[in-house]
């Protein structure tokens, strides 16, 4: 048992923080995001810097050019980048696709796709969900028909983040419509410039463009872009899912909001000359949120620790996702209450407090309890896989 980081880990954190301090523009508006073109430029610039330092591929094995860092070091990296709201990380390529290729890809696929990800030069996106296949992902209907040297893909993917900025997509498509629903799916890599692909923007409730709907009409995917064998796609896609759910990003975002709100409560006068920080109601609510945030943080640390122990922390990862995403909803909603009338002011209003960031975050995190497996799906995983309860759906 040890509830502190090693000296090496702390040294890495310091190095990272120094770099962040030196790199992040002083006027950086952390309420901006990648839907903003200027912000996206910054993202790409920082990504290349991260790549140059090897941090984009921090946890990749050394044999693939990575730094072979432990899951805990990766967690520290993610935690600080999230807390400081630094853009530049690459979830789809470096954190999702690359480990998948290392396990399931061919040697040729690894040689072909990993280096550009490692250099931060190629943007990937993820084609999983479909309009009629959300929580029931395995019911997906996008078809990939064998046509000799190629698959011919037809269908629609939805909620695809960054599709409009992506060079490539990894997607799941049905290759055997006769098989039971989990068994007829394949995992394909596809160049977004292939003819037949149409990307339609989906604007979210914050007015931002993150998501897209992608239609595939007779899109031809060469067979050497099949990963993990025909009809093995479900297996390929899910073996690595747990590693996407450490939850540290969620809880860290929440901790940052708490920190911002605490600073606001210290500095802003409330009514009747009493600082918000001295108000009994707010003190009680802050204290409970701080405790929950600390508990959620440790849960995410535990997931990383278990990963380092070479165990698959399925149950803990789901817990961490539920706890972190819910906490973010709680703290942003609390923030709006703390801000009172000011809480209704969006980014760009001159009278807005904290640059309207709390409202932006309030909107943003509504999606978090839904994406990457709804919290209801996560609770099913905890109950069924974690505690041996029977299937309930």
């Amino acid at each position, binding site marked *: 048992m040890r509830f502190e980081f090693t000296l090496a880990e702390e040294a890495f954190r310091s190095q990272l923080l120094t770099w962040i301090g030196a790199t992040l523009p002083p006027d950086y508006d952390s309420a901006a995001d990648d839907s903003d073109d200027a912000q996206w430029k910054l993202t790409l610039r920082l990504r290349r810097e991260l790549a140059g330092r090897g941090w984009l591929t921090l946890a990749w094995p050394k044999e693939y050019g990575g730094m072979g860092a432990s899951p805990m070091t990766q967690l520290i990296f993610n935690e600080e980048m999230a807390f400081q709201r630094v853009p530049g990380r690459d979830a789809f390529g470096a954190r999702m696709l690359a480990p998948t290729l290392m396990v399931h890809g061919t040697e040729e696929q690894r040689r072909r796709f990993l280096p550009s990800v490692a250099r931060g030069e190629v943007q990937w996106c993820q084609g999983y969900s479909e309009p009629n296949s959300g929580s029931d992902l395995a019911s997906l209907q996008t078809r990939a028909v064998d046509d000799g040297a190629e698959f011919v893909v037809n269908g629609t993917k939805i909620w695809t983040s960054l599709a409009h900025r992506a060079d490539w997509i990894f997607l799941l498509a049905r290759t055997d419509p006769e098989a039971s629903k989990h068994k007829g799916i394949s995992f394909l890599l596809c160049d977004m410039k292939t003819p037949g692909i149409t990307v339609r923007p989906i604007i979210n409730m914050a007015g931002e463009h993150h998501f897209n709907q992608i239609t595939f009409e007779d899109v031809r995917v060469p067979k050497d872009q099949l990963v993990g064998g025909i009809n093995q796609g479900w297996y390929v896609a899910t073996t690595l899912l747990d590693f996407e759910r450490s939850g540290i990003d969620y809880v860290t975002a929440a901790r940052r909001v708490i920190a911002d709100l605490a600073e606001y409560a210290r500095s802003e006068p409330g009514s009747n000359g009493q600082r918000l920080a001295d108000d009994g109601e707010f003190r009680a609510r802050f204290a409970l949120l701080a405790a929950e945030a600390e508990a959620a943080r440790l849960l995410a640390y535990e997931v990383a620790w278990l990963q380092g122990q070479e165990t698959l922390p399925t149950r803990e990862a789901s817990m961490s996702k539920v706890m972190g995403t819910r906490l973010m909803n709680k703290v942003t909603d609390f923030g709006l209450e703390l801000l009172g009338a000011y809480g*209704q002011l969006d980014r760009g209003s001159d009278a807005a407090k904290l640059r309207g960031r709390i409202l932006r975050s309030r909107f943003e995190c509504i*999606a978090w309890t839904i994406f990457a497996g709804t919290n209801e799906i996560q609770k099913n995983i905890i109950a069924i896989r974690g505690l041996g309860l029977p299937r309930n759906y």
Partner: protein
Amino acid sequence: MDFGLTEQQKLIRDGARTYLREVCPGAYVRSMQRHPTGCPAEVWRKLSDMGWTGMLVPEDYGGAGLGLVEMGLVLEEMGAVAFPGPFFETAVIGTSALSLAGDERQKSSYLRRIADGSLTVSLAVQERDPAWQPSAIKCAADRRDEDWALSGEKLFVGDGTSAGLFIVAAADRSVSQAEAAVTLFLVPRETPGVRIGERWLTVDHDHQTGITFEAVEVGPDSVLGKVGGGWPTLRRLFLIGAAMKAVEMAGGARRVLEMTAEYARKREQFGKPIGGFQAVAHMVAEMAIYVESARNIAYQAIWRLAQGHDAAQEVALAKVWANEACVRTAELAHQSHGAIGFTQEHDLQIYTRRALAGRVTYGDSRDHRDAALASIHL
């Protein structure tokens, strides 16, 4: 106790429901987000023609002379379609302010114009410290012989970018007692020295802004009610605004419930409607409890105001509960809808935004706390 409606009330509600559903689909709400007033002239004229803008205006001044309950029924339906525009500020608050405190000349001039649709009104009370308390009113009213000079700023002015007439709360700096210092002034938009800010970006895409008064000179005929008597009027407007906002919020929540129940019946995953999973079904059931209870408690407050009671406690309880119930309803609706619910093209988010706005309009739960606690002698 009677939770039912009279035949006349049912007609009003049904009429409102029919008209509003027709005129105000989600596409209309979206297009109004970019409209300078939030309500096109032809729609506003229709509201006037139907007698809605003058619903609370006494018949002597060209109105329908109806009461707050009837207005509540219209607002509930407006909430249900997320109807945008200056109706609330003008037809509810502006009318109430003039009816409560206006002299004959003011009523005759302004109430008629509200009823005939030629005037919109806005209440300018809140400032940097947006608390609904006399001490928070710092905007100064300085006597200059017979006239007054107003200096200061107002924030969170609803429809501030479009209203024709502002009801401005200002404090006489020569009066030390905060409540006794407050006087209300009727200030037409074009009065020299009134500087209206840029339209704010708000959660509800409404038309709030800040206004600066730079030694704005107004005459004694601009005083609404008695000099130094502004606070009791404001307090009553605060109560009316809170109760009516609560029923509008409940109307929105009701629509969110309907929308979610419908989605849960139709959307299928794992081979059956998602409403057939307890996780979703129970969320919808919780929403129904919030909606029904928020609606009842809002009407209790409105009815008691309509009876002429002070009703501060009932209003406070209604607004506190609406604030809680309607935001929780929105959260449950999003979780039931999944990804589609937080897209701009889906109507759900319109209601979510509006619930968050409603929570801090005419008092957040802290503004209403003491009155709510009075109901349990605390």
